[in-house]
């Protein structure tokens, strides 16, 4: 386990710096004037230009720029918006809301997805199996923003079950957006669990368990289930990236003042520093989460460790 952890950490470091360097280069170092682009259509006065050039160390060589930028990032300095407010403050204020939304979405997709997957997988080719396969395909195919508006129109406005905008009504306000945010991953999890269950039901250890007379409930519920959850855990890490992209869209549609909405507002107001700051932060979280899940993966499945 120790060796695996160390190897995995060593692999993580170049990827981490490589990816952040890529983003950095794309944002600040590509020919053209990133500062002018920051202001959108407006023309910045020279004094402001110099100030920003200095703030982002644009007069240094590229690698020095990057090193200073990462130094700032690690100290929580993600730049400032146009009113001089640190982007970090904005994130600190918005992040809890997004975390609440994401946790609810995660819970929703995991519970329903796994149940649907098991129900479909234990009777391959049956009615429930086909139902799950087709309905998940439909959910995957509908882009999340179309799904969001549909949910808003149908469930929110026509039936009036849940609030459709803002977070004034506490927990209830998060239900509909979380369902929309989690829906696509729910479909993926259901399909993944199904495939995994179907495969594992054919495994020798399941036959052994059945042969020694264990009840089917235990064979499926404990033996098969545990082994089938391994790919689902891996998926959750990859899913986090999709979830963050989805949060930008969902929060925009449902008017939830989380971090995703802040990205959208940044795009609308053409505040490049806000957009880049937050997205860099999200990518960092994504990479760290992936590392953690890789470790979790090894804890769950000893076969990985000894590879």
């Amino acid at each position, binding site marked *: 386990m120790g060796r695996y952890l160390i190897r995995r950490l060593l692999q993580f470091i170049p*990827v981490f710096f*490589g990816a952040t360097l890529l983003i950095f280069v794309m*944002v600040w170092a*590509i020919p053209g004037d990133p500062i002018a682009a920051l202001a959108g259509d407006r023309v910045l006065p020279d004094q402001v230009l110099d100030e920003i050039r200095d703030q982002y160390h644009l007069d240094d060589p590229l690698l020095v720029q990057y090193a200073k930028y990462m130094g700032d990032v690690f100290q929580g300095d993600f730049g400032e918006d146009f009113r001089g407010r640190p982007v970090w403050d904005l994130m600190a204020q918005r992040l809890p809301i997004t975390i609440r939304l994401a946790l609810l979405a995660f819970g929703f997709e995991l519970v329903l997805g796994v149940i649907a997957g098991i129900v479909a997988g234990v009777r391959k080719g049956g009615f429930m199996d086909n139902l799950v396969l087709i309905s998940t395909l439909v959910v995957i195919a509908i882009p999340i923003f179309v799904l969001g508006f549909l949910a808003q129109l149908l469930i929110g406005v026509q039936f009036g079950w849940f609030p459709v905008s803002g977070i004034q009504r506490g927990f209830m306000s998060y239900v509909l957006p979380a369902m929309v945010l989690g829906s696509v991953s729910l479909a993926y999890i259901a399909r993944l669990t199904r495939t995994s269950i179907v495969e594992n039901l054919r495994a020798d250890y399941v036959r052994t368990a059945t042969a020694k007379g264990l009840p089917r409930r235990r064979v499926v519920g404990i033996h098969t289930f545990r082994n089938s959850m391994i790919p689902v855990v891996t998926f959750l890490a990859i899913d986090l990236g999709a979830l963050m992209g989805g949060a930008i*869209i969902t929060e925009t549609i449902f008017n939830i003042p989380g971090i995703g909405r802040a990205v959208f507002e940044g795009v609308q107001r053409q505040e490049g520093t806000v*957009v880049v700051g937050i997205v860099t932060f999200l990518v960092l979280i994504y990479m760290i989460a992936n590392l953690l899940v890789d470790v979790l993966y090894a804890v769950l499945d000893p076969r990985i460790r000894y590879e």
Partner: protein
Amino acid sequence: MSERERVPDPLAPGAAEAEPVGGREGGLYADAWRQLRRRPIFVISGVLILILITMALFPSLFTRIDPRACNLADSLLRPSSEHWFGTDVQGCDYYARTIHGARVSISIGILVTVSSTFIAVVFGSIAGYYGGLVDTIIARITDVWFAIPTILGGIVILRSIFSERGLFQVSLVLIVLGWPTMLRLARSAVMSVKEMDYVDSARALGVRDFRIIRRHILPNAIAPVVVYATITVGVIISAEAALSFLGVGLQLPAISWGLMISVAQNRILTAPHLLLFPGLFLSVTVFSFILMGDALRDALDPRLR
């Protein structure tokens, strides 16, 4: 069955690379084809994709109305016999706009998929076939790119680099963010086929590396790539629409489903048709490609049966 019902266009990227096995040897692909054309899922998605491609190539077959000829007096009309899908704020015929929107989605979907598949197959084969240092370098570079999620990366790149964003810029960004997954797939497929005895015997006969990869390895390794590429067309179309919806993708006056939905979002209560029609077309398009990928997977990957 007649010639007309051959595998439809979206398969072109994969089909082109798989050519060596085409008619003469048959095998997996002939088998798969025989099986596929009896599957309703394949036929339905194939027909839908053909219609969508025709729509993208020749929108005038579906509508004679100019999507940019608008009459402000007709603003926000509900669907009627005159305007099937109603009209938008500027009074443009929404049916014509929706039909013309297919071009952007389909071109970006196919352009991005073909290009990233090409990059992935070339470098994936090199990495998988030669192994060693070359493989390590390619795999590590891939890891780095793979770490950036598509929508997030798309927002940063499109927002900071391009002040004008058209079909070309959006495609370029999606290619740049799309190839790593495909490369990993191609690489591992090539690695597993490389171990086969017939590859060894070809090498023993003195066949050149390039020819071994092209004639002996790729035809047998391409199936999972073709399946994934087909699904990718749908995923990319969805990503383009999402980026346009967020305001970092295509810009007006381009006609695109994502943009139409973006404009419609402020009026979903008063004019829901503005949202429903492009949303429906977009979903059906993505659905068709994913369905096609599913059917292909069943046919090309016998292990999953």
